[in-house]
């Protein structure tokens, strides 16, 4: 029979082995202890049950633990004076091992064999063979009541960065709250045809970027929408760089303010840009189109995007021109946009670009 005891402070395997009538070696082997001089208080230890006396022996099953003395038949309990001190002393009879189902031994062997092919990483850990700073956490911290990869429900997110970028630096701040925000995009199965759908319900957000390096730049935007929804269909197997895409968007109860300025290199953009605008509209909508033409033997594309919109119950005025390189994507952009509204409004936004293929579906304004 075996017991499981808890190692107490001051215990040694030698003492426990003496007490239980077994050897240090056997205790170490049975418990997987590689260094018998190193055991820890609080750890469990599987040990043989204490030897029983003659009275008990009459009713208990014979389970000799120590060598019997010839006169009594009772197991000899080694004392401090007689107990084996070293493995060189005559071997003690093996203490019974802890109970285990018959298949457990097979489980040990099969498990060790199967584990050889497994990783030392946690199952969910993707081994990234690249510097940690190549992992671009594109999303700011978010608190939300629910959602999934593509949907946020009753959410609030905020982010603030002040990153060194050359001579002086760069700041970036954004915050958004809303009831529902969803984004879906993808191809239909393996076909080179896909679509996208975005929906915002009761959302409000503000973004600010600024930088001074070898030049100065500023981008600021604040908007709020009761409902904004957009959808598109595209040709191509890459949702980030569709060969051709056509879509539409509408918004109800929207308000927006924008500002854009750039001269030189602000750390994230290089070129010139100037723009600004204010608009509030009961309803507005637009249609848009985009093409992306791969340049053979490179990972670059030539892109063109245009958007034409109208609004009702609106008031607003705005415009923007820019010729710049986005230093995050590496793409060169040439764009212009304008809008004017007084009860009814019109807007136009055009962007031409060339450079490395897009890595997401975000697009700068014209």
């Amino acid at each position, binding site marked *: 029979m*075996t017991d*499981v005891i808890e190692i107490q402070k001051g215990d040694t395997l030698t003492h426990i082995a003496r007490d239980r009538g077994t050897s240090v070696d*056997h205790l170490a*082997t*049975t*418990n*997987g*202890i*590689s260094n018998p001089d190193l055991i*820890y208080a*609080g*750890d*469990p230890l*599987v040990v043989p049950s204490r030897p029983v006396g003659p009275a008990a022996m009459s009713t208990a099953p014979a389970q000799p633990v120590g060598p019997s003395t010839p006169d009594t038949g009772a197991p000899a309990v080694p004392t401090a004076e007689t107990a084996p001190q070293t493995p060189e002393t005559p071997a003690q009879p*093996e203490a*019974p*091992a*802890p*109970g*285990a*189902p018959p*298949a*457990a*031994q*097979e*489980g*040990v062997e*099969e*498990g*060790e064999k*199967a*584990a050889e092919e*497994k*990783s*030392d*990483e*946690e*199952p*969910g*850990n*993707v081994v*990234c063979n*690249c510097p940690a700073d*190549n*992992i*671009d*956490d*594109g*999303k700011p911290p978010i608190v939300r009541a629910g959602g999934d*990869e593509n949907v946020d429900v009753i959410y609030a997110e905020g982010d603030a960065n002040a990153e060194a970028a050359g001579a002086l630096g760069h700041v970036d701040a954004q915050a958004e709250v809303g009831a529902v925000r969803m984004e879906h995009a993808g191809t239909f199965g393996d076909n080179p045809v896909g679509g996208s759908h975005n929906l915002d319900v009761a959302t409000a957000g503000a973004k600010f970027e600024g930088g001074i390096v070898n030049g100065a730049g500023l981008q600021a935007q604040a908007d709020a929408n009761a409902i904004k929804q957009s959808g598109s269909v595209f040709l191509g197997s890459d949702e980030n760089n569709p060969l051709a895409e056509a879509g539409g968007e509408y918004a109800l109860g929207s308000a927006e303010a924008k500002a854009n300025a750039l001269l030189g290199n602000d750390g994230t953009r290089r070129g010139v840009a100037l723009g600004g605008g204010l608009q509030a509209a009961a309803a507005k909508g637009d249609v848009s189109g985009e093409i992306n033409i791969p340049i053979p033997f490179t990972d670059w594309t030539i892109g063109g995007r245009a958007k034409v919109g109208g609004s009702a119950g609106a008031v607003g005025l705005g415009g923007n021109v820019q010729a710049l390189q986005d230093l995050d994507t590496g793409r060169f952009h040439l764009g212009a946009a304008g809008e004017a509204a007084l009860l009814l409004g019109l807007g136009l936004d055009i962007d031409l670009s060339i450079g490395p293929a897009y*890595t*997401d579906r975000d697009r700068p304004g014209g």
Partner: protein
Amino acid sequence: MIRFSSNQFRQFEVAKRKGFYDALRRDLRAFMAKTDPSLSEDRVDTRITQAFQTCADNGFRTEKQITRLCYILVTFPRDYPVRAKYVWIDKMIKANASADVRLDRITASIKAGASST
């Protein structure tokens, strides 16, 4: 330079985690069909799920550790923590030592038991 978005990484992680547990469950089912063919599919799956949960609750985190412990645990009855005969393994699983040390102790105990029978 290749850049990965955090979203792409999350998808990789989810797929990798699911792939590992699905494959291990398949292997454990096959193992149990060999060692204990009398067990119903429901009981097999219950034991496997319990083994996964035991690993998660007790700091057996790497694929190797989870694999080793699960192969052992599925051979034990579902109520092993309350059976006097098997309570030793529950104590070893919960002992205050690294997962690898605990696994080595459990393995040694079972091997010692097999060699003495």
